[in-house]
């Protein structure tokens, strides 16, 4: 028989097929075609990497050894899928909205982006994953060896074959798992290849099952009879172990890095979970359908002592059905390779993101600033990680010698990886969960797992028998397999019970006792309330519709013309006809850069993400947007303040301008009046002096009269000039007060005699002398000037038949008040407010001054700290002069 060589050829052919399928799927996805690549069916099939070679071969073995216990491995995921569908949906939503790249990333992200946690989970995953990979390699070797026994002439060499298989898988994972930097981007090639492998392994197992039932047993009824007759048929259930393994497989289904990879990271659409919820249990049911018949028939047909794990291969071989055996081999090969590829991808993402990159960045920073493209470094880190993990699996397999110890590794790995469960579920549903809680819980669980299960199970004297028997240092209550005196349990059950319960307890207690950082709180809220914060992400369709949305958005930000120019240029660069380019990653990247110039990097990222990514905005995005908005607000409030300031300044300027205009008009009016007051007397002077010069025969009376006019007008001019200068000095505040002391009476006496000197008309002045006994401390001349002005005004303008001026002094409200009231008709009401204005000789005969007298009085009183007002309703003209008490002293 040339079976072995043919097998190798078939194997190679199958691998080539996988490469081809993955390559084609990647190409189609990149071109935006092949919607079926993102169908729920592909998603469901990719989930079936849960069924590794361990379940493909091992389920039959397990059934042959322990009866129906193998069902528990399928029961866990089935229960999760059917009854915890909503929990998975939340996990997927969170994973998508946070752009999570692995389970380590998810845990770290939930607990405030803690890299310590990420490293813990990564170590746990690598520790659990490496033996698991070794297990797959072993299954391939074992299955090869079956054929090698049957065909000793083949080219098969055990060691070499495992190496080449491992190397080939590494190349596959590197080629299709690290094509893109963005770990969040779907690996369509890998997923499609896995889906194909799922179909192949199901098909192979079903084919062997059908062959066994109908080909060997002769139909369903004889088969059932055979099962009933067999040991396996007996209902022999260890309830504790059943519950433990069911729980473990359920936990592992959620926590295994490779499951997380296909379920969350590679998920295109939440709705796919809906299909998977019934389709995946159905797949598991089909996978388990013929396990018992194959085990029963294998036990019957094959000699005692043959490995039940390989019944799937050996039963067809024993019946001479080489082709069926070969199909079965390919099924097992599929199970092993798909698991190894995805595990390597998932682990490498974790290792490179959380271990290699942080270290690299740290060392780089110390040497020089980060420059250039980090992208190549990341890709290289991921590729090397894949190769390293594969090498680790390979060496583990070589060192462990492929012994029987590997058989139990699957469950051991499950127990290890399940330690993530409390932190994961707590993080999704409990906002109070903290980073410290997660760290403590993980450490406790991890420690117990290593101490009670991993070390005792490894053999090879890593943990001495005496420790297992009597506990470390003879402390019996610390015996690894009977912790705290809990004896009589199956080691697996014992470990799961202690590690997970203490893990959960430590997690809760530490969470309650510790205080979360702000970022943790935010992330916690984002995770627990993910359905409130995010929209259901749609698939990234890469359609022209998206390009249109992008165009509309870009136009809003950049303006119509620049946006169209940019899109046109991109379309030309892509060689696409029309104005709209395909939304390729490169284009989106350039668009983001273009937009971030206008709206800030975070906002641009979030906006494009909303349209294209289908992924909702993460907390950090929001924080960054908020930051930018705050800056904009700050800026705009500064602008607002400036604008308000400008408005204020403009108003002040306008007011100043109005005031200046008013002052200018007042000045014009004032000059006009001054001119008038100067020119009027000059006119008389000139006219009469010309008359006297040019006219002959003027009488002596005439001559005297005209000369008198000239003289009077000249005096009037002088007075006017005096008044003008006086007022100007007073108004400019240049006046020096000449303070002196005298009684009010003295000052009034002097004023009355001065004002009335030489007056033609007799003005009677009435005074109340006792009230004038007030000592004054002020500028006596200036005050006297005011009094003279008021008295002579009365003398000139009082129109009564017997003009009388009454002067009285009072103490009113702490002020010295002197009233000047005459018995004339007074100042008309409408003119009263004007009497103190310059040249405001309202209603007065103009026999006297230039109309500056009262204006001067007002200025003087201001200088003296008092005031002068017109008193309405006193019968005649009435003025009140008041001085502050400070200038007043006790009566003499």
């Amino acid at each position, binding site marked *: 028989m040339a079976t072995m060589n043919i097998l190798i050829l078939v194997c190679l052919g199958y691998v080539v097929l996988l490469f081809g399928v993955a390559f084609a799927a990647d190409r189609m996805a990149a071109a935006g075609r092949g919607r079926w690549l993102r169908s729920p069916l592909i998603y469901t099939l990719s989930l079936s990497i849960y069924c590794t070679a361990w379940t493909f071969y091992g389920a039959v073995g397990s059934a042959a050894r322990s009866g129906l216990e193998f069902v528990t491995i399928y029961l866990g995921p089935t229960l999760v899928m059917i009854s915890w569908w909503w929990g998975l949906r939340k996990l997927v939503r969170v994973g998508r909205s946070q752009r999570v790249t692995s389970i380590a990333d998810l845990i770290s992200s939930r607990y405030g982006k803690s890299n310590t946690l990420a490293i813990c989970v990564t170590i746990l995953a690598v520790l659990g994953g490496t033996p698991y990979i070794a297990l797959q390699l072993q299954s391939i070797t074992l299955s090869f060896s079956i054929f090698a026994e049957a065909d000793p002439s083949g080219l098969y060499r055990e060691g070499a074959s495992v190496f080449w298989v491992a190397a080939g898988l590494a190349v596959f994972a590197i080629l299709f798992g690290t094509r893109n930097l963005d770990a969040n981007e779907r690996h369509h090639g890998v997923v499609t290849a896995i889906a194909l492998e799922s179909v192949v392994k199901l098909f192979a197992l079903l084919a062997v099952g059908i062959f066994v039932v109908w080909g060997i047993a002769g139909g369903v009824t004889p088969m059932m009879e055979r099962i009933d007759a067999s040991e396996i048929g007996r209902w022999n259930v260890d309830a504790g172990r059943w519950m433990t393994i069911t729980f473990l497989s359920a936990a592992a289904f959620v926590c295994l890095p490779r499951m997380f990879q296909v379920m969350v990271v590679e998920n295109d659409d939440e709705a796919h979970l809906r299909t998977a919820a019934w389709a995946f249990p159905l797949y598991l049911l089909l996978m388990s359908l013929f396990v018992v018949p194959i085990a029963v028939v294998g036990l019957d047909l094959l000699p005692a002592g043959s490995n039940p794990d390989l019944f799937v291969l050996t039963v067809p071989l024993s019946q001479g059905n080489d082709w069926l055996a070969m199909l079965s081999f390919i099924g097992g090969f599929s199970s092993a390779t798909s698991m190894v590829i995805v595990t390597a991808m998932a682990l490498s993402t974790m290792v490179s993101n959380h271990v290699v990159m942080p270290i690299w960045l740290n060392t780089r920073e110390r040497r020089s600033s980060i420059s250039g493209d980090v992208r190549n470094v990341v890709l290289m880190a991921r590729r090397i990680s894949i190769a390293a993990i594969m090498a680790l699996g390979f060496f583990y397999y070589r060192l462990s010698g492929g012994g029987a110890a590997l058989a139990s590794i699957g469950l051991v790995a499950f127990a290890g990886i399940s330690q993530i469960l409390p932190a994961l579920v707590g993080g999704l549903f409990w906002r109070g969960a903290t980073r410290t809680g997660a760290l403590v819980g993980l450490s406790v669980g991890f420690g117990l797992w290593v101490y009670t299960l991993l070390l005792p199970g490894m053999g090879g004297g890593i943990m001495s028998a005496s420790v297992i028997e009597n506990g470390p240092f003879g402390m019996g209550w610390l015996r690894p397999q009977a912790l705290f005196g809990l004896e009589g349990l199956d080691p697996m059950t014992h470990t799961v019970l202690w590690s997970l319960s203490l893990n959960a307890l430590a997690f809760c207690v530490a969470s309650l006792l510790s205080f979360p950082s702000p970022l943790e709180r935010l992330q916690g809220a984002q995770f627990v309330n993910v359905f409130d914060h995010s929209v259901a992400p749609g698939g990234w369709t890469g359609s022209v519709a998206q390009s249109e949305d992008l165009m509309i958005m870009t136009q809003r930000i950049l303006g119509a013309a620049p946006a169209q120019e940019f899109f046109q240029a991109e379309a030309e660069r892509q060689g696409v006809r029309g104005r709209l380019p395909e939304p390729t990653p490169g284009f989106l990247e350039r668009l983001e850069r273009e937009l971030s110039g206008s709206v800030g990097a975070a906002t641009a990222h979030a906006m494009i993400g909303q349209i294209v990514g289908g992924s909702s905005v993460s907390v950090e995005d929001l924080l960054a947007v908020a930051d930018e908005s705050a800056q904009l607000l700050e800026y705009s409030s500064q602008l607002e303040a400036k604008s308000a300031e400008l408005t204020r300044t403009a108003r002040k300027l306008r007011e100043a301008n109005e005031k200046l205009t008013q002052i200018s008009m007042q000045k*014009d009016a004032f000059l*006009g*009046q001054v*001119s*008038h*007051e*100067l*020119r*009027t*007397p*000059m*006119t*008389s*002077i*000139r*006219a*009469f002096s*010309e*008359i006297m010069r*040019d*006219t002959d025969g003027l009488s002596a009376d005439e001559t005297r009269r005209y000369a008198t*006019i000239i003289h*009077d*007008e000249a005096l009037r001019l002088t007075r006017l000039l005096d008044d003008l200068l006086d007022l100007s000095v007073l108004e400019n505040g240049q006046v020096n007060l000449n303070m002196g002391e005298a009684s009010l009476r003295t000052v009034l006496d002097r004023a009355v005699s001065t004002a009335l000197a030489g007056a033609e008309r007799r003005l009677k002045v009435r005074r109340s002398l006792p009230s004038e006994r007030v000592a004054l401390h002020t500028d006596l001349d200036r005050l006297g000037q005011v009094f003279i002005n008021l008295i002579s005004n009365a003398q000139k303008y009082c129109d009564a038949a017997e003009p009388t001026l009454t002067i009285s002094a009072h103490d009113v409200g702490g002020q010295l008040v002197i009233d000047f009231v005459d018995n004339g008709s007074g100042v008309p009401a409408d003119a009263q407010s004007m009497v103190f204005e310059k040249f405001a000789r309202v209603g007065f005969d*103009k026999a006297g001054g230039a109309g500056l007298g009262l204006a001067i009085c007002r200025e003087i009183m201001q200088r003296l700290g008092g005031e002068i007002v017109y008193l309405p309703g006193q019968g005649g003209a009435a003025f009140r002069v008041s001085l502050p008490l400070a200038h007043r002293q006790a009566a003499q």
Partner: protein
Amino acid sequence: MSRKVLLIEDEPNITEAIRFLLTREGWVVETHAEGGNAVETILAARPDLVILDVMLPGKSGMDVLRELREHADMKALPVLMLTARGQSRDREMAEKAGVSRFMTKPFSNVEVLTAVRDLYAQASRS
């Protein structure tokens, strides 16, 4: 036939000077000292010439002139205006209001007499 001039001026000394000058020229000089009812006085007095001051109590000379010119038979009446303010804007305003001659104080007596003679001669010719 005697020539009659109406002098509207509130400054008594100036009034006296002009009265002296024009009386000697053979004018009958009537006077009025405020702006309030100056137009009525002109209409009633029917003078051959009006000498009008700008700054009058009651109503400004500008307003008096404007109102006077609204009467159809007063459009041609020669009006000599005197001002002491001496601002160029006043001259423009007066010309708009229909002044016949505008003079700034202080004036020489000869100027006033010449202006009065010219204005009267023009008015008699037309």
